[in-house]
């Protein structure tokens, strides 16, 4: 379970202080597919960065299964990022000089998994997201946007994370490809029993999730629960 309490993140921008996250409280039970929606600049990315420990909050707490990640040290944070979280970014963010396979193997290396296991797991994941044997050995530069995002999803799932955090994962893709990618994310997370938190502008996508949080000016202004209906 993920429990966020009075989370705040301020940015100093020149003379003005921006309250990107301004007192968010939310609870996400395990195995849920959750969407975060809101206007541009409302604080969605800032919130996701805090949840994934890519950024430190100004105040508040983020409890993951009872542990407050805002109080973790550097080594614990690395472990948390590698093991508990899988990130899917809008702009794919694959390492350009590594092949698709090597990109997927990378997070497993951080946990010290043996090479044989890494290769096997990476190959399986890449096949599952729909890459063939030739594509697996290609570098991101020669793959299409949709293929790159598939590799990114495989990489996010590599270490069997508890949470997938995806910031507008379909934002750079045409709507048809976006839909496929979203379905892939959905299907795989069901299979891997992963909790997914996805930031999206696409209300059609948000409508398919169990729960939606609408954010405005760094606060949750509305939450819609569809799991009961």
């Amino acid at each position, binding site marked *: 379970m993920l429990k966020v309490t009075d989370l705040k993140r301020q940015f100093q921008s020149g003379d003005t202080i921006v309250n990107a996250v301004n007192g968010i409280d939310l609870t996400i039970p395990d195995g849920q597919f959750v969407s975060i929606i809101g206007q541009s600049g409302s604080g969605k990315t800032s919130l996701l960065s805090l949840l994934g420990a890519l950024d430190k909050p100004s105040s508040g707490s983020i409890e993951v299964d009872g542990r407050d990640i805002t109080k973790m040290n550097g080594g614990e944070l690395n472990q948390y990022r590698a093991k508990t979280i899988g990130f899917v*970014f809008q702009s794919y963010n694959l390492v350009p000089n590594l092949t698709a396979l090597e990109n997927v193997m990378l997070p497993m290396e951080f946990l010290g998994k043996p090479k044989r296991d890494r290769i096997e797991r990476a190959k399986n994941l890449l096949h599952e997201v729909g890459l063939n044997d030739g594509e697996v050995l290609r570098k991101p530069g020669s793959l299409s946007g949709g293929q790159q995002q598939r590799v990114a999803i495989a990489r996010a799932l590599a270490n069997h994370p508890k949470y997938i955090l995806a910031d507008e994962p379909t934002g750079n893709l045409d709507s048809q490809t976006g839909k496929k990618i979203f379905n892939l994310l959905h299907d795989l997370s069901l299979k891997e029993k992963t909790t997914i938190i996805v930031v999206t502008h696409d209300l059609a996508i948000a409508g398919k999730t169990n729960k939606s949080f609408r954010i405005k000016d760094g606060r949750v202004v509305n939450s819609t629960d569809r799991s009961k209906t």
Partner: protein
Amino acid sequence: MNWFSRGIRSAFRNATRTFALVIILGLSISLALSMLIAHQAVTQKINNVKSSVDNTISIYPAGLRGFTGGGNPLTSAQLLEVSKTTDVTSVAETLSDRMTSSETNLQSPISAGVLGRRFARKVGGLGGVFGNYGGQSFTLPVIVNGTNDPTNLSAFSHTGGGGTFTLQSGTVFNSNSNANVALLGSSIASKNNLKVGSTFTAYSTTITVAGIFSTGNRFGDSQVIMPLQTVQRLTGQTNQITSAVAYVNSVSNVATVTAAIKKELGSAADVTNSIAQAQSIVSALQNIQTISLYSLIGAVIVGAIIILMTMIMIVRERRREIGVIKAIGSSNIRIVGQFMAEAVTLTLVGAIIGITFGVIASKPITQMLVSSSNSSSSSSSRSSLAGSGSGGNFAAHHFSGGHGIFTRVKHDISSVHAVVNFSIVVDGLVAAIFIALIGSAVAAYFIAKIRPAEVMRVE
């Protein structure tokens, strides 16, 4: 694939840049290496020269230049006083002469050579020795050294060419002999078909060959050594001396004894010791040592700056990639390790190129440093540089340079030899790796500052 092999692979990510970088790095490393080698060679030479400082003092009639120049010969009486000077253990006295074809039936084994003739023409007017110097054929005079210390070639190296006296056959005459005997160098002996017991004519007198010796150099093997008193008698120069070497009981007393002898002989003689000679060489060498040291430091700094700037550039360029790797759970250390592997790879490739260039370039560079410094240093240091080829060498020994000082000391700047040994190469590699690690340590600072949250931004 782990961070290490990723680092090595990253080094060749941008082929053009890697090529340019490795070439520039290689040049700075090769410069550093050749300067290191030059510096070592010169340092070695300085130590050699310093350790060669001996307990001898050279005494020449004032103004004498080999066989040329004016000045009155020294007398036995003057040298008797020298031998009585405190701390002087012995004095080797020499009366040198050149026998022309009218004075002896001996023929010099040395052919004149082009350079020899030119030198002869230059100086011929001074002594008028070479009556026929302009013509196609003239005979070189035979050098005869009358000495009271026949086996001590260094006592008359300025006319005899130095070397080490090795008796091949016969016997050596006594130091105070007055007999009509001679020791012949092996070259002149074979040229004239003479053996121990043979005779030849000199100064209208029949001289018996008492022994035949070799010196290790062609010039020395062409001379005749006779008892001092015999030469004095035959040339009508009784009690006259053209050079002497005083031996002092200890090197530490050489300076004071030199001063005492100078005072004793006054303006009649030029008195020099190997300390002064060594000092002039050492000061010239020290210039080279300084130049090579600064160039070495400069080249190392340039190399370090190049790798430092490159690493900073690479880190800035891969800012996003570093952020991503952090975001998916890598420790800073692992990323820094990858960049260090990359820096070391680049530097090692540069070092291999640099060491190859450096080893090839070190000898000519050392030689260039030495010869440029040489020509700007005192002219006397050129004595043993002048001339090559037998004839030229002959003339050079005789007609240029002051007293052949540097042939006697057996050191001159031009004989600095660059030696490339394996340990220098290893040192160079270690230094290159060290520089690379420092370069990547700075990169590590920038790596640590990159916030993983940055990767959330859409480009």
